[in-house]
């Protein structure tokens, strides 16, 4: 099934417009937190320990379905991507968006051969606590602990969250001089980021 066909099929399944094989509601309910109370899972990783199922680094090579990554401690890793791996690069996207030089964080399951079967890959994602130093046309200049960062507004994607209210596309309430938290996609080897979400106390 192509991706459009799959989308149509899934739409029908959730909105009940087509008959699809759907896992029963009882299966879901049994996994609700109340049901799981008292049967806490054992810790996957000890406090303070290195997490074997998580990789931080930059892409040094691409092969079909596989990312070659060098971590900042110079260790090398292979990350296996499948159709069930989510890939984020400013927005949810496909594995084709991965480029050599991209920074990444990946979470998955470490296989016996040392590769990471990835559940989720976040490309170039940054989370910065900043002060807004100036605002220009579709651009915000940010101060990140004394370093200058240029934040680009991407029409249709950049959202603002003011005082924990629902995200909106209207950025006009952002103020020069105020602090903000920025989730964005770093443009490799620059001090520029494309803005995904800006959290601000308006």
């Amino acid at each position, binding site marked *: 099934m192509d991706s459009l066909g799959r989308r149509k099929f899934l739409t029908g399944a959730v909105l009940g417009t087509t008959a699809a094989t759907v896992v029963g509601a009882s299966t879901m309910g049994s996994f609700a937190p109340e049901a799981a109370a008292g049967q806490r899972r054992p810790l996957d990783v000890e406090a*303070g320990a290195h*997490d074997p199922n998580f990789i931080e680094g930059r892409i040094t090579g691409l092969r079909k379905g596989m990312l070659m990554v060098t971590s900042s401690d110079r260790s090398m890793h292979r990350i296996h991507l499948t159709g069930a791996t989510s890939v984020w690069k400013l927005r949810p996207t496909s594995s084709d968006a991965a480029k050599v030089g991209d*920074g990444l964080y990946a979470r998955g399951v470490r296989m016996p051969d040392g590769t990471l079967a990835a559940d989720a890959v976040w490309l170039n994602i940054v*989370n910065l606590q900043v002060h807004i130093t100036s605002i220009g046309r579709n651009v915000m200049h940010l101060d990140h602990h004394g370093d200058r960062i240029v934040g680009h507004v991407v029409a249709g994607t950049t959202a603002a969250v003011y005082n924990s209210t629902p995200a909106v596309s209207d950025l006009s309430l952002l103020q020069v001089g105020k602090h903000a*938290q920025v989730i964005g996609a770093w443009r490799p080897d620059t*001090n520029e*980021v494309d803005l995904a979400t800006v*959290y601000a106390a308006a």
Partner: protein
Amino acid sequence: MAAPPDVGAMAPTTAETSWFCCGAGWGPCGSAGGGACGNCQSGSRHCAWPNTSDACFDITRPDRCGDNLLRRTCGHTFYVEHLCGTTEIAVQIADCGPQTDLWCGEQSCCSGNCATNRLLDLTPSAYSAIGNLSSGIMPVRIRS
């Protein structure tokens, strides 16, 4: 009025958490360093706590949001789970943060449950074990 309960003791409390990078890293994380405790790593189960020392407290000021946080120093272990999740992780203090007083009163909710004020920051490894990095903030339950 009753004094606010001490946070950071054995009893679980709810709070907001975000994520931060530390140790060697790419992009804007490159300048992050090992944090206030010197050993912080993005790929390890570490966290930042707003009251690790007097100097730390002077910057984060959780008291301005009405939170009475206990002094917990480098290496202390917290157990953290998503407010609507089932997986609990263990994290060790490796840095000072977040700057709680910048976000007093901020709230994150899930399925009718809400948590107020930023009292904890997690490394990407820890945060992504119970949430998604693309969401910059999530509600959690913390116990010591």
